[in-house]
């Protein structure tokens, strides 16, 4: 039984990359130095029409505030499995948020976008304040945010 489990695990380890090819990308979010509490951010992938695909990162740990990240909340249905393991601390004004996350290869150069929804207590909630096309050539390019985000870029 033990041998069987080990074998299965090994097989899975070898087989998995073939099933879903993934790579690591780095997300760099520079916050504006706005006045107010730390911002909650949802960084996620949509198609060109804004249809939700997957969550890359959520900054902010209290799930009860996630409803303010409106488009992402609706897309993800606020299901735990969509953001399990990809959450971290909220981002304060002037801060640089850098995270490394997994991205399925299939999403690169296929017309998808990275979007950011943002929210600050007692201030504006923003849907898609950043929209950056997810392409090999777009890596390292700065996208300017509308509200709390100064610039956003990703490195492949």
């Amino acid at each position, binding site marked *: 039984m033990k041998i069987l489990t080990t074998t299965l695990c090994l097989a899975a380890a070898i087989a998995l990359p073939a099933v879903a090819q993934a790579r690591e990308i780095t997300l760099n979010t520079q916050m504006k130095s706005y*006045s*107010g*509490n730390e911002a909650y951010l949802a960084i996620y992938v949509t198609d060109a029409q*804004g249809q939700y695909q997957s969550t890359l990162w959520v900054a902010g740990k209290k*799930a*009860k505030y996630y*409803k303010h990240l*409106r*488009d992402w*909340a*609706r897309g993800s*249905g*606020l299901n735990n499995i969509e953001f399990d393991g990809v959450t971290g601390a909220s981002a304060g004004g002037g801060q640089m948020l850098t995270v490394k996350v997994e991205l399925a290869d299939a999403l690169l150069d296929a017309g998808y976008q990275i979007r950011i929804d943002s929210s600050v207590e*007692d*201030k*504006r*909630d923003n*849907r898609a304040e950043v929209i950056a096309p997810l392409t090999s050539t777009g890596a390292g390019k700065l996208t300017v945010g*509308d*509200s709390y985000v100064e610039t956003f870029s990703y490195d492949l």
Partner: protein
Amino acid sequence: MLRQLHSLPGLIGAILIIVLAISGAVLSIQPAMERLQTNIPNAGQMSVGSLAGRVAQYYPGAEQIRRTPSGSIIVYYSNADQTGADVIDPLSGQALAPYEPSAFSIWVKDLHRSLLLDTPGRITSGVGALLMLLLGISGTALLARRLGGWRHLFCRLRGNWSQRWHAEVGRFVLLGLLLSSLSGIYMSGANFGLITDGMQSEPDFPSSVSAGPKAPVATLPALLATDLNDLRELVYPNPKDPSDFYSLRTDQGDGYLDQSNGTLLSFQAHNTPRRAYELIYQLHTGEGFWWLSLFLGLCALGVVLMSGTGVLMWWQRRQAMPRLKGNSPAQQADTLILVGSENNSTWGFAQTLHDALRQAGLQVHTAPMNQLARHYRQAQRIFVLTATYGDGDAPASAQRFLDRLATTTGKPELGFAVLGFGDRQFPQFCQFAKDTEAALLKQDWPQLLALDCVDRQSVQEFARWGTSVGQVISQPLTLLHTPKRPHSHALQLLERVEYGEQVQAPTTILRFSTTEAKQQSGWWQRLIGSRGPGHFEAGDLLGVLPPGSPVPRFYSLASGTSDGVLEICVRQHANGLCSGFLHELQPGDQIEAFIQPNPDFRPAAGSTPVILIGAGTGIAPLAGFIRNNRAHQPMHLYWGGRDPASDFLYEPELKSYLEDHRLTQLQVAFSRVQEHSYVHERLRQDAQLMRGLIEKNAQVLVCGSRAMAKNVMQALDDILIPLHLSVLTLKQQGRYHEDVY
């Protein structure tokens, strides 16, 4: 125990609590300010739909409408070129002002809930709320105990400035303090997930929408059916996404709205934990209840005052007790020394005993008599050293001793010995020491030594008692005590006024400078300003050290700091060491003296009448009270002297006080004139008036000789019979105080 339970969290939390209280008080103004600037329509007057219709006229790019708990309406919008937020008038939909939460109030809010330190700060704030609750409960219990039970919790308060303010403000803010701290603890618990706040559960997003053409917002039925006063938030659908929907949040629950037909797609009412959380949140922040918020803010300011006075009281208590080397904890000591002292001279003797017993190898715990514990685990013997105050009463550090003794359990195995301190000249010599001995005997504690008394701080008598103690502990004990001179100031005589030479009662009013006459030894002393005897009020005592004696004599002060001089009234006694010395003084001469506070002996502020009774030099503090009666509290003075032609002390002053109504009525009695009378006889003549005043809650302050005080008490007891009152009852109510000698 209870006191430690109060002082310890108070000292640890003082700074934290001050920060929380001040920031809380600043935040408390906001709901009221916001309410003032807001136009709130009546219930039923306006629906969310009609508001949204008006907003649409001015804000085609509206994204979200929020209603704050105070009723302000904020619209978030974006146009082609910019985004923004405005506070609008709900009735017209027009902008009032751009909405920008002030950076200052965000900062204060952050300070209040997390001390600007994020998670560790939030934990600290929560602990602060917990300490505050602990302080509120233990403080109330302490106050109840001090006033003699819960029923007396709202009685008149006694004590010095900080004690009175601490308790007075404490009673006032208790309710607000409990509300703020309990709700604060709850919110802290909810924040850390220890308490469920019900915020997690959200209605499910609708899976499908009707996908028809977008209808004007003002026509949507669900919005027209929602009263504006119930609104919290309306989020518009994404304009680029026809399958999106409105989110509607109200006081009752949350749901989504189809943007083409306006039906409510999935509505979920708030659950009970959430309603509880929101109510408690509102009680804490006062959001939506501006009056509650202001009340809580006022209480928070009171808490700041209490932190200050609390720390001050702790410091005063610490100072009042000399620093003892190797004072063992109460529960580990085999030998206890309990001290009853009014002006600290008894502490000096206790210290000598403490050191000697420690040298003999004992574990000694020395404490004020008021700190008698209910139970001592290790104690084998107790030594009680106590002075007597006034007419046989307990001195300050022993006032609660007899009450506490009644509640003790377990007696020390080897018993007790009481040593009294006093002055044989007084009839009630060592009376409180006698009372203490009797009370201990009544408790069936075994007695090690019979009561002994030390007359006028006699070092020899104390050493003799030490020998007896040595026999008890089977070790030779030498008690060598050198009385320490109290820390005194050199004060210069400015002026003297003489009376009474002709009636064999030479009496002098002496006025001293309030600043130290001594040459300053350095600029730094001037800088730290230790140049005078400190703050004092009429009724406090001036301790004068006559040359060649370490034992001070006390005189009642007829002036306060604001009068700019130290004024006492001294009658020369035959062979009186100190009075003789003072009578010889000429302006320019100096004395060594210090202030001994006497906070119980002064009129309580307010508009109730004050009856002042005195004879001879007893006029001094009473004249001081009248002089400072700028509030024109009704004051009636009964005073007795010998002959108006010779010893009518303060005659010109009293007449001018009558004219400007600082003094309501003056009744004098003279004993060496044709139709002689005494002050207690005057009182009997005015019995009707006395009863009237007492019925109006008058306070009585008596100052003078013991014999006079006794006659006055008798007279008043007789006068009060028809009212079914006695002087004793008045004393218990804190309305009758004596300063006798």
